[in-house]
């Protein structure tokens, strides 16, 4: 445990030094608050766009606060996923290619401790960035639209966080297999994108898919009763994360590229 703590502390300091602690939360916050702000000013934006025929009137119903937050979640699903992959891709491969991993592994450190420190380190940054962004967005939504109960927001955040755990676990796994950051990011995005696509195309067969998490969270925000397969999705996502993490430890140990 002490070894893991020492490694993790170094991860946190390193993320501070290379600016990850700054850029990731900021970009996430921008993605988040763009949603309520653009929704709020949408009528004006369309009016100023100009090419409407004389006399045409459009009326856009003002969305509720829950709808705006659900829209934010889908923003996180695309750009947010990409950002987390980019932030996580290099954490193991960079240390392998520049050789710094050697002087760590000559110490009594196990593969499990090493990979765990990377996984935990990246997860904490990603989840905290998401948290800051989501709750800032919630604050703006309450100001500009109808207010949403904080407990529901927290629940939807927790459900959605599991998707982030999956992204980090899979990207870390790719990081132990491939050397180049391009391959790591490419395969991670390919997998997550394919999962979302298949889930959208074949909703009947993909009730277990982690890509349903944002839908579950959105339904919770709308105040509707939870879908039947919520538990299935949750437990399956957790199992997948454990599998990916276990494989990452195994593959890190096997490749021996210290």
């Amino acid at each position, binding site marked *: 445990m*002490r070894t893991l703590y020492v490694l993790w502390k170094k991860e946190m300091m*390193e993320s501070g030094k290379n600016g990850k602690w700054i850029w990731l939360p900021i970009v996430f916050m921008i993605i988040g608050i763009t949603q309520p702000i653009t929704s709020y000013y949408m009528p004006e934006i369309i009016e100023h766009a100009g090419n409407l025929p004389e006399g045409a009137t459009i009326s856009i119903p003002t969305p509720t606060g829950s709808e705006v937050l659900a829209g934010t979640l889908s923003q996180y699903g695309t750009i947010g996923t990409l950002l987390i992959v980019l932030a996580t891709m290099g954490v193991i491969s960079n240390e392998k290619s520049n*050789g710094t991993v*050697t*002087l*760590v592994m*000559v110490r*009594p450190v196990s593969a499990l401790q090493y990979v765990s420190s990377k996984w935990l380190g990246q997860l904490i940054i990603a989840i905290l960035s998401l948290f800051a962004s989501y709750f800032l967005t919630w604050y703006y939504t309450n100001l500009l639209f109808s207010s949403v109960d904080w407990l529901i927001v927290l629940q939807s955040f927790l459900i959605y966080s599991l998707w982030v755990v999956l992204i980090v676990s899979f990207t870390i796994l790719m990081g132990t297999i491939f050397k180049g950051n391009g391959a790591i990011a490419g395969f991670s995005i390919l997998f997550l994108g394919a999962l979302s696509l298949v889930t959208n195309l074949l909703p009947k067969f993909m009730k277990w898919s982690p890509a349903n998490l944002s839908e579950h969270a959105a339904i919770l925000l709308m105040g509707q009763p939870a879908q039947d397969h919520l538990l299935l999705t949750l437990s399956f996502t957790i199992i997948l994360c454990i599998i990916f993490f276990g494989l990452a430890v195994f593959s890190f140990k096997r490749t*021996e590229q210290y």
Partner: protein
Amino acid sequence: MLLQVNELEKKYKSHIAVKKISFQIEKGQCIALLGPNGAGKTTTLQMLAGLLTPSSGSIQFKQLNEKDYRSKIGFLPQHPSFFNWMSPVQFLQFSGELSHIPKQQLKEKINEVLQFVSLSAVKKKRIGGFSGGMKQRLGLAQALLNDPELLILDEPVSALDPAGRRDVLSLITKLKEKTTILFSTHVLHDAEQVCDKVIMLKDGEIKWDNTLEALRKAFITSALKVHTEEPIGDKLSDLPHVEKLEFVTDSSMILFVSEGNSHSNELLSAIMEKGLTIKRFEKLQDSLEDAYMKVMEQ
């Protein structure tokens, strides 16, 4: 005995890097692992350091039954890389904590090793700005941090300029008194300067495992250079103990004598008996380099 290596082997998909080698290291020895590039030196050292898992064979560290003996050794890789954003103190703190050195002791130890490798003046500077020699010395410092029973150094001087080379070699000479050292090099001269025993590797096999003295005795046929006033012709063709003759000019030649240097007087009088006037009679310098080449060609 400190370490016993038995039938150690490392196979990769297409080739075998280390082929069933066995040797042992006694406490307090300084051993050089010699061999050309690609002989399997680094692979062997990395297996000893616990970075690579052997395909077969065993490494037994003293009477220790624990499999993980990494806390008992210090390892300096060929090209040590550090987290560039750290300072030497931060890095050694990090390494020491990973080795479970108690806090109070660690603080003193860090100052001690930095003093030893003379990096105290830059202990708060970023490692990113260090020269190759400074990094090598910092690498040595991190290897010494946990008071290792066995210090493993992979090509510690190969990448350094003459000054850095001398610094590191003199540090190793100082360390010899305190701990057991195994270091690899492809420069025979470095091994000669600090070590008493050499293990020579070629193509993953041990070619020689003994002291330097024994190497000299076993392989060096001494050579004598004779310079006479008269042309030699074939007058010297039947001298005793001479293995080979080589003409340099008409009146000078090199005699390769077997069994060391014990027969030079005998030879001198034998040459004079042949009626030659000797201008110069010279024992040529024994060359370890030649012995090394002979071992490698075996």
